[in-house]
């Protein structure tokens, strides 16, 4: 992998530049961005970026785009950590570029690479379409046909699901999950994001479908060995493992691994939910 160097541009940035001179700290950041296209040889290009107060890595990438390398590709949208578009790997950690402050990083050069678990499109942009295919495999919310609206749902029945609604689909959890990242099992494993979705549907008091068997078989829930990396990288601080994946594993255990419940169902003939 080649490393190329690009000089910093003049401090007198163009008017459209978001980094105005007013916030300059006098420091310079060395940003090493992995550039490349599918089939090509990726090259880490080093750029010198003037640091401003409160700067995030996305600011630095924008500076590079505006001043040093207009060819650099980066996906972004809201710059408020709510759209989930600017996911990348900074110093090897999957993060949102817009939520990663320069002054939180250790001194020295900062590397910015695309998400490793997804096919590369160009530079920092990857193809995350596999996630949308998985999403379509999950049966959507389905209420009982005779359950007329409007619904009045007590707070205690809906509390748990609020947490899952915070997901911004940045797919950092999918990226960091070693089952997809290192073992390349994305065809047989839904991944943390979609276990969150299944959990939100399974725990919904008005949903009547049972997705446990599908989650175990097609979803590959058993592949998950609960190492909690998904929880660690979630920018919305969703407790993916404790509140979604482990409860799903326990629900699967109700069906497959609990003779006590099996006897109970034989005697009383009902599902407990």
């Amino acid at each position, binding site marked *: 992998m080649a490393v190329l160097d690009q000089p910093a541009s003049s401090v007198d940035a163009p008017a459209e530049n978001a980094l105005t001179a007013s916030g300059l700290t006098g420091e310079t950041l060395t940003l090493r961005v992995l550039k490349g296209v599918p089939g090509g040889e990726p090259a880490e290009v080093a750029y010198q970026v003037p640091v401003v107060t*409160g700067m995030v890595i996305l600011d630095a990438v924008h500076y590079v785009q505006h001043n040093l390398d207009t060819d650099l590709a980066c996906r972004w949208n809201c710059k408020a950590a709510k759209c989930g578009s600017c996911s990348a*790997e900074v110093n*090897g*950690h*999957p993060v949102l570029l817009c939520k990663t*402050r320069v*002054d*939180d990083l*250790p001194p020295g050069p900062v590397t910015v690479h695309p998400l*490793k678990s997804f096919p590369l499109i160009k530079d920092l942009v990857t193809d995350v379409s596999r996630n949308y295919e998985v999403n379509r495999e999950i049966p959507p919310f389905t209420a009982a046909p005779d359950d007329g609206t409007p619904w009045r749902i*007590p707070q*205690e*029945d809906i509390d748990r699901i609020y947490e899952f609604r915070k997901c911004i689909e940045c797919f950092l959890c999918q*990226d*960091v999950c*070693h*089952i997809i*990242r*290192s*073992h390349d*099992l994305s065809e047989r494993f839904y991944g943390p994001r979609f276990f969150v979705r299944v959990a939100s549907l*399974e*725990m*919904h*008091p008005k*949903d009547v479908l049972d997705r446990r068997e599908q989650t175990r078989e097609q979803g*590959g829930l*058993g*592949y*998950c*060995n*609960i*190492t*909690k*990396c998904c929880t*660690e*990288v979630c920018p919305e601080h969703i407790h993916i*493992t*404790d509140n979604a994946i*482990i*409860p799903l*594993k*326990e*629900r*699967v*255990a*109700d069906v*497959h*691994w*609990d003779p006590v419940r099996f006897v109970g169902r034989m005697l009383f003939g009902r599902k*407990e*939910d």
Partner: protein
Amino acid sequence: MSTQVTKVSPASLVSAPHSGPGPIERILDSLPWWALPATVVTVLGLFGLYSIWTAFLSGGINQSGPYLSPFYSPTIWKTGPVSPALWVLGSPLLFRATCYYYRKAYYRSFFWDPPACAVGELRHRKYRGETAFPLFLNNLHRFLFYLVLIVTGFLWYDVYLAFWAPNGHVQLGLGTGIMLVNVILLSGYTFGCHSWRHLVGGGLDCYSKSVVGQARYRAWKWVTVLNQRHPLWAWCSMFSVVITDVYIHLLRAGIFVDPHIVF
């Protein structure tokens, strides 16, 4: 119709200074990725060696006066060719081995699957996770929870016995306190279990329409409070078991005399 204009001073638009990660976070961030797995391997390895020594090589039941080691409680088959601890240790050790927290710890530290987040793995053999033998047996965690409930009940009974001096009077000793703290930590760990959280109420979809649904919802919330610190309970209770056992060994060997008050 009037228009209300709120004046905003420029100073109010300046955000508070960014504090960034705290000192502990900075230290943890600065550690190499292998520091945590290495620590877990060392501590769990030492705990395993200590367990083998105290259960099988330390010369019989570790008991001194009213104090009974948690490694030997309840005392089943006090005599025989093998250590009485053998009949006791199985369920607590397997309970921990199948615990969702310890699974994370040993998958990362012993199996390196993965050793840390976003770190490449050394082994690239076919990965089966918990879909195949023997690791799918981790799904039996809830049964070991049932067994450990019984053991925990005996440990509380041991603490009750530790409050009574041999002459029938109530006593308060350092050993009583150590045993009490130990059983509190063990209970915090046991009742914060993910399986228990599921069984007590997490498995319900609709609390409002379930039999005793409100009670189960409240129970689930209480267990959730314990569950959020499950790793901390796990480590603290493991250390407290060792400390209790070491203390009773010291008393038994006559190296230390238990300070106590008899009422």
